[in-house]
């Protein structure tokens, strides 16, 4: 709260991305000043954590035109996040260090509810944040992996796909088969028509990436868990840009839209580049 008050007193734009319940509490506490703070529901806007960096980027571009400082609060992690979502939130938190130009006058606070989250989650937060505050005490995080290490989680393998899942090797001539395979699996899993089409659109773009940049093709794997259909593409390509899919494409740019689209069509997108190639895992909630 003092963080928001200080920002308002200094005339700085303030954006708070958190859960609705916390937004309501902050609004009540801010009373007449609540109108000066921008709020967004993290559960909606940042449900897929890969959509959060573009929100910060837009806020910075709008708010700090004249070099004016801006400040924000972002709370992407809550106890109900699934393990895959949590991994991506942690990756997002680490990437934020790389995404925002260090010269940008932004002061970003990422609250962690240490009483509700597991100790490992809080320990990872110490590795992804340069400064930590506990109570009123702010200090440098001794565990911070630094800007140089902020891309490290990109090369940590994902948990293996389940044995016996539906799989299909594909090449340049098989894109229609990839779409049909995803469509059939998604329909059988019970994904509703609109959401199924969104998954197909995303899957097609990722398959195209494998064909164009991943050695001419790849392998599709499909399975489901209790909450989502999961559609995985693996190929022999390398992704060198950890920010891929998190920069709003400009109208003029030729490429760079596939994973951006996937992030907006899916509930979660996991990308890892390993020595043997790249894996992209799309999650679409049932």
């Amino acid at each position: 709260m003092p963080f928001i008050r200080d920002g308002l007193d200094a005339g700085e734009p303030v954006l708070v991305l958190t859960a609705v319940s916390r937004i309501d509490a902050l609004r009540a506490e801010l009373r007449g000043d609540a109108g000066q703070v921008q709020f967004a529901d993290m559960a909606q806007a940042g449900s897929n954590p890969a959509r959060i960096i573009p929100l910060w980027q837009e806020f910075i571009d709008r708010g700090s035109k004249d070099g004016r400082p801006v400040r924000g609060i972002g709370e992407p992690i809550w106890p109900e996040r699934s393990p895959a979502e949590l991994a991506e939130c942690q990756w997002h938190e680490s990437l934020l260090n790389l995404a925002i130009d260090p010269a940008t006058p932004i002061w970003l606070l990422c609250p962690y509810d240490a009483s509700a989250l597991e100790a490992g989650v809080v320990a990872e937060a110490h590795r992804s944040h340069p400064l930590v505050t506990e109570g009123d005490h702010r200090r440098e995080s001794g565990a911070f992996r630094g800007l140089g290490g902020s891309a490290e989680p990109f090369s940590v393998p994902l948990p293996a796909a389940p044995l016996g899942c539906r799989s299909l090797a594909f090449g340049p001539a098989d894109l229609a088969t990839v779409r049909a395979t995803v469509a059939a699996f998604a329909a059988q899993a019970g994904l509703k028509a609109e959401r199924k089409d969104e998954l197909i659109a995303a899957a097609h773009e990722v398959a195209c990436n494998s064909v164009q940049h991943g050695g001419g093709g790849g392998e599709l794997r499909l399975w489901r868990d209790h909450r989502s259909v999961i559609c995985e593409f693996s190929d022999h390509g390398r992704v060198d840009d950890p920010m891929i899919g998190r920069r709003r494409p400009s109208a003029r740019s030729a490429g760079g839209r596939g994973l951006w689209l996937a992030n907006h069509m899916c509930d979660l997108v996991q990308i890892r580049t390993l020595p043997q190639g790249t894996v992209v895992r799309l999650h679409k909630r049932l």
Partner: protein
Amino acid sequence: MSLLKGAASGEQPMAGWLEGEPMYTDRQLVIRHTVPTNGLSFAGTIDVMNADQVASALISQLDQGLPLHLELSRVEFSDVSGIRAFVLAAECADARNRIVLHGLPSLLQRVITVVGWADLPGLEICSCSAG
């Protein structure tokens, strides 16, 4: 109903459109001239396999100094490179011969917005579109 399919996913184009001769055909797409509108109708799939040919087909129709109207209600699937074919053609168009998209399936309309092509000067999305 599938969002990938437009308003008229059957055999016929939308009401008010009459089809003439095919001007482009491949394994997954047929483009026909339409009468009386200065336009083209699309049926099938536009993707990375035929996007270059679609862009060339569109650009070849742009030299008539009139808006080019595209009937898209029977596009079963278009990927980002397919949409980019429309964008490339729109970039070649000027104020007189802009490209107008009709019957755009609602998912495609969303994709165009998400990838940042909804406000190009040469590309207009008609309100008759599905979304």
